[in-house]
């Protein structure tokens, strides 16, 4: 993977915290939401980070690779153009669908874990890969529900997806925690089943629990349970990168710095 061997610890770049991201100590890489960028008018902050040599990885949310509909090639091409404009070593999206029958869900919806759905997903991923200039990594989501009649566990589903498409994995440990808390899945079994050697990097995010339901808000502090999962993952593999996601209710610079330090501490402790 070249540069991915040493991405380090990063943070999701958002317009509201651009200056914070620029001045936070020890930010090794950042991730941007690809759909929010215009190739012709990259934000000044992003340009500055690139000039400093900070890798900027585009992260998509709209390819809807799990849709029964064919992939929208224009969206893929936009993602590829953003990657080229940023000199990014890879791009990413989710194992999910966000559109069906001409309707947008407005949310990342889980794909049924059946072999039929996997065939559709594999076909769409291959189409996307054929139209992308850089490798594609796919992320596990926090599911609101599980479709009935699943034939594979999530780990098996992702493992087969990787095997058939040669894609990389972007593992969100907060989503793992959400699924464990809300759906009763086993994060350790998930980590046992996925091909960790294809890990591109890791997402860490905060959330909050209400009435026994974990909400993956990206607007709260990272919970200890999520950091524990990161430690569990780190004890199995040295991830090329770990990225903190924060999308709302942005805390102070020092609070964000503390969260990044906590991630580094977990990585070091479980090395």
């Amino acid at each position: 993977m070249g540069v991915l061997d040493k991405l380090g610890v990063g943070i999701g770049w958002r317009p509201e915290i651009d200056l914070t991201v620029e001045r936070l100590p020890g930010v090794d890489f950042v991730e941007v939401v690809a759909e929010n960028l215009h190739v012709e008018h990259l934000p000044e902050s992003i340009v500055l980070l690139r000039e400093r040599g900070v890798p900027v990885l585009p992260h998509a949310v709209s390819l809807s690779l799990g849709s029964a509909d064919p992939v929208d090639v224009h969206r893929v091409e936009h993602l590829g153009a953003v990657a080229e404009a940023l000199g990014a070593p890879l791009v990413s999206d989710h194992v999910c669908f966000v559109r069906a029958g001409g309707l947008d869900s407005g949310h990342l919806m889980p794909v049924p874990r059946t072999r039929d759905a996997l065939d559709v997903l594999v076909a769409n991923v291959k189409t996307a890969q054929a139209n992308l200039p850089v490798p594609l990594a796919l992320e596990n989501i926090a599911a609101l529900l599980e479709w009935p009649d699943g034939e594979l566990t999530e780990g098996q589903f992702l493992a087969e997806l990787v095997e058939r498409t040669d894609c990389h994995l972007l593992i969100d440990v907060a989503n793992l925690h959400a699924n464990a808390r809300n759906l009763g899945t086993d994060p350790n079994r998930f980590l046992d089943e996925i091909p960790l050697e294809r890990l591109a990097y890791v997402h860490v995010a905060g959330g909050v629990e209400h009435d026994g339901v974990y909400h993956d808000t990206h607007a709260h502090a990272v919970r200890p349970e999520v950091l524990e999962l990161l430690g569990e993952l780190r004890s199995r593999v040295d991830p090329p990168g770990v990225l903190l996601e924060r999308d709302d209710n942005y805390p102070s610079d020092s609070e964000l710095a503390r969260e990044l330090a906590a991630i580094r501490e977990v990585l070091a402790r479980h090395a």
Partner: protein
Amino acid sequence: MTSGTRTPGRTGVSPEEFGYLSGGPGRAAEVAVVRLLEAGLLRISREGVVSAVAATAAGAATPLEAYALGAARTGRMLGELIKSTATSDALAALKQHLVDRGFLASAGRRKFWGAVRTLTLVGAFVAMASVAVFHFNVGYAILLLLLALVVRWFAGRMRRPVRRAGRREAARITVMSNDRLGIVAQHGLAGRIGQFPQQYYVWEMLGIAPSAGATLRRGKRRTARQNDGAYYASSCNSCSSCSSGCGADNSGCGSSGSSCGSSDSGSSDSGSSCSSGSSCGSSCGGGGGD
């Protein structure tokens, strides 16, 4: 002047009130927003998006600050936030306080003297018309015309938003060069300070990025009417989206890059023009997320 506090020893006005007396409601709003920025309760992005650092009003020292903090909770362009704060109930209360203390003219007073100004115009016209129609004595007509002009000038002075007591109070304040909040109150964010040719904008002094400062670009026309002082007119485009809303052809968000005019005088209008991109982020609610 101490930031965010009254200075009863020297004057009886707070920084926000000093801002109002110096530049109108927009200036008072600027003082509140800058105080919050300086205190780390608000953050401003390179493109001028201002957002609350904590999702509470804790730390706000005044009702105006509490309003600005709440208004910025979801992130707003600097010019838009100032405009919103300048038209808030908290600002109206601050204004009323200044009216009650005799520093500002009341709406009724301004209306009265505005009517007097109009009447002088009517009187002058009648005097001139009488000369032509009724062969009124030209000397008397000229005398009446001059009288009307004098009354009109006087009414104009009486109609000014800041009364003599307010101007006197503001003049008593000496802003030190290291008093950043005082400088904002006196000159405004888009005002210029320093000696020619080393002049710079107040927002530059505060470390605000040029693209964010550009959102404070002043309009060329003084369309705000002097009645209530400064206000901001903003025109912002936002590019927000959610998980699937943004398509490949969804052009992102540009940034404004215009320059700022300068003015450090009292009441005027300011226009901001900006565009921002808010992050799609990821799906977050419920149990779903990325």
